[in-house]
């Protein structure tokens, strides 16, 4: 789906979301009357310091208000922008700041929902979609942490060997199913049904902590994470 | 991974009271050696996990030399090998014994 289609399905009565370069800002009202803030990173564009600071600025502005309006983050990005300038100026701080903005907004009562409808990768994925309280995806989304070609270079394994290994485990290869298996994506929405309904249903369920490791365990993609984290936390509090 | 097991007579029992010692790191040309206590003071059990296949003879020689030189009795040793040279293996084994024999803080 395109952002236009997504927004139309989410906000049938209209919205004020507009593009600023490859970024989106604005808001819409769900059929039930709930106002939702929208930010977005679109068009498979890389996220550099200039994009990150603009996005965090918008999120912090929303977070200031005490009205607990949800924030919907539409994501179709590349990885973080790979350039000398971005690293020179401290891209890690900008991406971390964006993630912190989303997390603090959430702590102040704003639900944060990531909607991954295209690609996203590496640091950009972490600072946007994965920093939301709930991450859902649309069919056809194609997140990747590392592409197989790069992985082949580093592991010195041929791509076909990697592809064969990828069939036995979701833990390293790109793709929506794999990210669902490790618990990174809570649910894949149905593109043929009203996105507004699906978002309203999601917002109606209270969010209860970070359940990604539990999901990863249940779905078989991350067999040890939930248990190990639990054991360490218990040992520290013993 | 190739897994090798050795369980051999060790004339000198290890001293000290520490339950465990860990030396080294799994990196190229390096290895980690985890030393723990067993309840057989006259034997030393060693388990090696290595990606370099086909060097059992060499490990045999290194392990025999180690048990002959160091107080290895009553120890249970687990090794994760990153392709270390025999001299590095010897050094880490010796460091492991020294560490488990150190007085507890």
């Amino acid at each position, binding site marked *: 789906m395109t952002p236009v289609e997504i927004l139309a399905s989410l906000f049938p009565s209209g919205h004020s979301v507009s593009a600023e370069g490859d970024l989106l800002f604005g808001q819409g009202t769900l059929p039930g009357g709930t106002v939702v803030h929208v930010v977005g990173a679109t068009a498979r564009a890389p996220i550099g310091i200039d994009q990150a600071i603009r996005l965090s600025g918008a999120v912090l502005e929303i977070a200031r208000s005490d009205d607990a309006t949800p924030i919907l983050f539409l994501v179709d990005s590349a990885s973080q922008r790979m350039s000398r300038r971005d690293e020179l100026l401290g891209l890690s701080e900008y991406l971390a700041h964006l993630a912190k903005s989303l997390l603090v907004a959430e702590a102040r009562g704003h639900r944060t929902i990531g909607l991954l409808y295209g690609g996203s990768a590496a640091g950009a994925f972490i600072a946007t979609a994965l920093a939301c309280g709930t991450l859902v995806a649309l069919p056809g989304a194609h997140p990747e942490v590392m592409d197989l070609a790069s992985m082949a270079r580093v592991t010195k394994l041929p791509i076909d060997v990697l592809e064969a290994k990828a069939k036995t485990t979701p833990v390293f290869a790109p793709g929506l199913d794999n990210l669902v298996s490790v618990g990174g994506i809570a649910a894949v929405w149905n593109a043929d049904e009203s996105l507004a309904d699906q978002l309203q249903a999601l917002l109606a369920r209270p969010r209860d902590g970070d359940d990604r490791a539990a999901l990863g365990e249940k779905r078989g993609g991350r067999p040890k994470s939930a248990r190990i984290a639990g054991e360490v936390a218990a040992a520290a509090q013993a | 991974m190739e897994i090798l097991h050795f369980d051999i007579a060790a004339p000198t029992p290890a001293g000290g009271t520490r339950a465990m010692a860990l030396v080294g790191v799994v990196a190229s040309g390096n290895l980690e050696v985890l030393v723990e206590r067993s309840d057989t003071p006259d034997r030393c059990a060693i388990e090696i996990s290595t990606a370099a296949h086909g060097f059992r003879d060499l490990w045999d020689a290194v392990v025999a030399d180690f048990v002959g030189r160091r107080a290895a009795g009553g120890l249970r040793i687990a090794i994760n090998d990153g392709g270390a040279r*025999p*001299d590095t293996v010897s050094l880490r084994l010796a460091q492991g014994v020294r560490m488990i024999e150190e007085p507890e803080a």
Partner: protein
Amino acid sequence: MRQWNTRKALREERIAAGAGFATGKLVHPETLVDFLEAVLRAGDRVCLEGDNQKQADVLAKGLAAMDPARIHDLHMVQSGVVLPEHLDVFDSGIAKRLDFSYSGPQSARIAKMLFGGKIELGAIHTYLELFARYFVDLTPQVALIAAVSADRHGNLYTGPNTEDTPTVVEATSFGSGLVIAQVGEIVDTLPRVDIPGDQVHFVLDAGKPFYVEPLFTRDPAAMTETQILTAMLAIKGLYQPYGVRRLNHGIGFNTAAIELLLPTYGEKLGLKGKICTHWALNPHPTLIPAIEAGWVEQVHCFGSEVGMEDYLAARPDIFFTGPDGSLRSNRAFSQTAGLYACDMFIGSTLQIDLAGHSSTITANRIAGFGGAPNMGSDARGRRHPSAPWLQAGAEADPDTAAPLRRGRKLVVQIGETFGEGNAPLFVEKLGALELAEKLNLDLAPIMVYADDTTHIVTEEGIANLLLCRTADEREQAIRGVAGFTEIGRGRDKAMVERLRERKIIQRPEDLGIDPLDANRNMLAARSIKDLMLASGGLYRPPSRFRNW
């Protein structure tokens, strides 16, 4: 009537042919290839200057770009086969025959070309030996050399990297050959004159400095505990008992570790002033802490080292420097110093056999020798006594009356029992022998012959071959320090123990060294940055060695 000046006449012809591409002595850079084709003749004996460090790289490129239909079958007589162009000329047929010393970075390709018959090999020499032949039967007809700068008369400034240049020019120019120099710039006044202009016939302004390889920089951060252990063994088991003051070190990590242990471990042993005071050595950055701590009285250098220039200029009491302040290195003289005036050579190798022969040549790599066979050999012409030389001589030959007994240079091979890629240091049969068989050579390319080798140091201990009286003892002494290699595991354990009682083999514990004490905190510098700081900021390491 015989003409007695045909060589000079030929040189005049070459100069006249080259003049069309030059203004005075200055070659027009854009016509370099035409110029070279004009002054060279097919079959010429050519010295293209380049050793393990500096390279006449622009002239090498020009040479490789010539038309092999015009200039072919050259006989290259050069110290180093280092740049790709050095071998390209053989691929294209411009050159045919090769006499050389060193081929580090090209060792795999040169092996392939030798096996493929692309190169007609004269011999692999040690530096001093090849220099000697420049004056006897390998005198170049054309020399292509490199300098820092020239003036309009062709006087050359070679800077700290003088190295082979005076030797090459001496042989070529006074042997009626043609000398062509590439320089980084043309100046009105040189800082100092290293080569007089009347020995130089053409000068090419390359517009940039010649290429130099920082070959002698060993990063202390990469030094292992095992290398430190071998260094401790060498200091306590050899330097101290023999009182070695005049020496040369190889370029490996083990000897670099020795340099870094002098101000710490050496100091603790009370050896300052008693060992390692006079050197024939490239300016190793790892020697900086020892120099700064007052251990070193004098160093003569074969060449310079990238980044060390300002440091060397600031320490003229230690290094040989010109009126301009910069280092004057000279490979031929320093090699002579290493042969005659040093009591010890210690270096690493790739393979040692059961007799004690060593070689850096393996089946697929021909790295050449450089200076090691010269430094690592006993000078039969030596006549001056020194304590280590006499002591080693007495150990080797206790029966001859002292006034008639030759001393012995200490020639020490130091290394770990397993080297890079877990390749064993000790082998039944040297790769050099296999190579000699494959190429039908009269001589296997041995780096240090068994009868020159006096000691072998590994992490397992020191073998003193001077004290061995039979071939069998010698073999077991070598097996006795060969660790877990097949050679080591094949030892006669009882005999090795007997050799240990006679101190032919000394283990770390025999020397009061606990291998577990060998750790990186003992190094006087643990990083390149430490070396830079120890030099007071005078040492400026190349970017590739930095982590700041």
